[in-house]
């Protein structure tokens, strides 16, 4: 009766319900991207420059989907680890992967809601027009694009202390977003910062998302995909090591 899939399913469901009942998580992660896009993509966008709005739609979506991934893994895991919730999950008969899967599902659901609300704002208030394939492709790239940030978040969550985790995650999330050109197009940055962006994961996700509309910087898609796969792998290894270490304790 209690099959493995059902365990995975229930764990994800309860994780999602728990998160939805946490306003300090829900409100910032859903409202900030929309609010920022309204300010920079709609209100301050120069009149008639409809592709600015389309460009910023891609970058603010990237900014939006990173948030839940980094926080549900980074901050939440740190807290649950320090409160011994993670240890409890580990000694329960549930496979521990169900716990991480639940976190991933939760951040994907949040990402989806963020993407859909930004799409709606862009289409209604900023006159962004894309073909159905482009809307779908943008959504797909962004949903898969949460993975590297889940991995990064997990590594941070397993390494950091509960008290410091939210602050550290923010200190990584916000400057990294800005320096990857998610808030203001990278072309407006000094050249050395433009070059530096290449080393930042959000830059690569934003470029892949922009590629759907042909507004990217013109590098090959496999460079960006490669960078994202590399980061996912890199962070996963360190997350695994951190997990192994904390399981011993």
């Amino acid at each position, binding site marked *: 009766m209690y099959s493995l899939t059902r365990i995975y399913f229930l764990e994800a469901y309860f994780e999602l319900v728990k998160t939805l009942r946490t306003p300090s998580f829900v409100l910032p992660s859903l409202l900030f991207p929309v609010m920022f896009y309204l300010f920079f993509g709609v209100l301050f966008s120069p009149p008639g420059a409809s592709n600015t709005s*389309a460009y910023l739609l891609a970058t603010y979506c990237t900014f939006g989907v990173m948030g839940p991934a980094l926080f549900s893994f980074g901050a939440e895991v740190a807290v649950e680890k320090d409160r011994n919730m993670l240890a409890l999950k580990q000694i329960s008969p549930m496979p521990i992967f169900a716990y991480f899967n639940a976190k991933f599902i939760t951040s994907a659901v949040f990402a989806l809601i963020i993407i*859909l609300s930004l799409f709606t704002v862009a289409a209604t208030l900023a006159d962004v*027009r894309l*073909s159905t394939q482009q809307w779908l492709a943008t959504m797909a790239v962004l949903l898969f694009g949460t993975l590297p940030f889940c991995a990064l978040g997990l590594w941070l969550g397993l390494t950091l202390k509960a008290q410091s985790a939210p602050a550290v995650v923010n200190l990584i999330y916000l400057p990294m977003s800005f320096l990857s050109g998610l808030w203001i197009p990278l072309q407006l940055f000094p050249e050395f910062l433009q070059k530096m962006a290449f080393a930042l994961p959000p830059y690569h996700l934003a470029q892949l998302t922009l590629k759907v509309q042909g507004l990217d910087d*013109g590098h090959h898609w496999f460079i960006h995909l490669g960078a994202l796969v590399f980061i996912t792998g890199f962070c996963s290894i360190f997350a695994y090591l951190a997990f192994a270490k904390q399981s011993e304790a």
Partner: protein
Amino acid sequence: MPSNRAKIYVLVLVSLAIFVIALLPEPQVRTTPSFVLNNITLYDGATWHENAKLTIFEGKVINSEQAPKNLPTVDGKGQYVIPGLIDAHTHSWGQALEQNLTFGVTSVLDMFTDINFMRANQHSRQQTTLQARLFTAGTLVTSKEGHGTQFGIRIPTIENAIDADEFIAKRLQEGSDYIKIVYDAEPEKQQFGMRFTSISQDVLKAVVKATHIRNKLAVVHVMDEISALHAIESGADGLVHSFGNSIMSTELLSLLAQREVFVIPTNSVLASIGQQQRGRKLLQYSPLAYKVSSHGKSGLMSSFPPNVGNEEYWKNALENTRLMHRNGITVLAGTDAPNAGTTHGISLHDELAILVEAGMTPTDAIHSATGAVSDMFKLPHVGKLLPGFHADMIMLNEDPRIDIKHTQTIVKILLSGIEINEAELNDK
């Protein structure tokens, strides 16, 4: 049971996603029409035809014998039909392409724009959207702190001839349709109250060569006789400015003719440098003045500071255009909009008027903004109303052969055969 509720949640979420995606708007794609336009006086980009008909099939001109039978016919009695105009020297951003279209300028040759604008708008030249078709040099070729670097767009620059090959390969990879090079033989002298560095003639030669190897055109921005001579020696296909600081020498004129180098004098901006205030006059007298946006008006009203040029400068510039035409040099119409005193669209009609003042017949002037541009820049689909070309055209109420200002008596603008609805354009 939570699992049932969970299933409902999953269902709701998925259907919400599908619902939102399905409702999201797509770009308007217009179906290109097919029809026969009868009873017109037609200029096809090369010659005039009285009592002509034009067969349009799916947005393109076709040979009437190959047309399917029973195409709808449109009576164009009393109308003069000429190809949509091409401005051979503009700088595009913001609403430039929409603004051009409002004035019957259905294609533009941009001579430097932000590559993001290029990427976003270049592809749409094959489709039918509410904008002029964009052909562009993309990023221009200039030296560090050279002309072109002062506009706040960060661009790569070139210093050494050895880098030319890689530099040009990069531009063409970005999507430049042709290469525009800025060259000044005497950068130590101030021009127009500003001082810029310039690439050397060696770099100019190397850049032209790298462009020609890749079968693209290299056009050069020069603003005086000596730089023009160097550009021609270096193999330039065209010059994108004339000048007014001296009268062209016979040496320059014969070299231009001999090497078949075309020139886009950009009289509109040279007139503005020479304090002619033609933009202001356009606003007063052009029947198209009512279409000029407030932004366009401020462009037309503005002028260069009086210390950069005077009446003399303009007289020389006009004389140079006259000399080039008389010596059989191909002169193309281009405005350099939106420089001071000009704006997109309406200024090209004034450029045609200037070309007639410089001694061209009205037909020559129209040719310089249609068929000649198509020939010189090797644009196979725009600038003519011959089989295979886009059905981009303007229909005029009065005969432009009698008075070039009649290009401003526009009744209809067609892009790929689709009548441009101005209300819709302005709404955008």
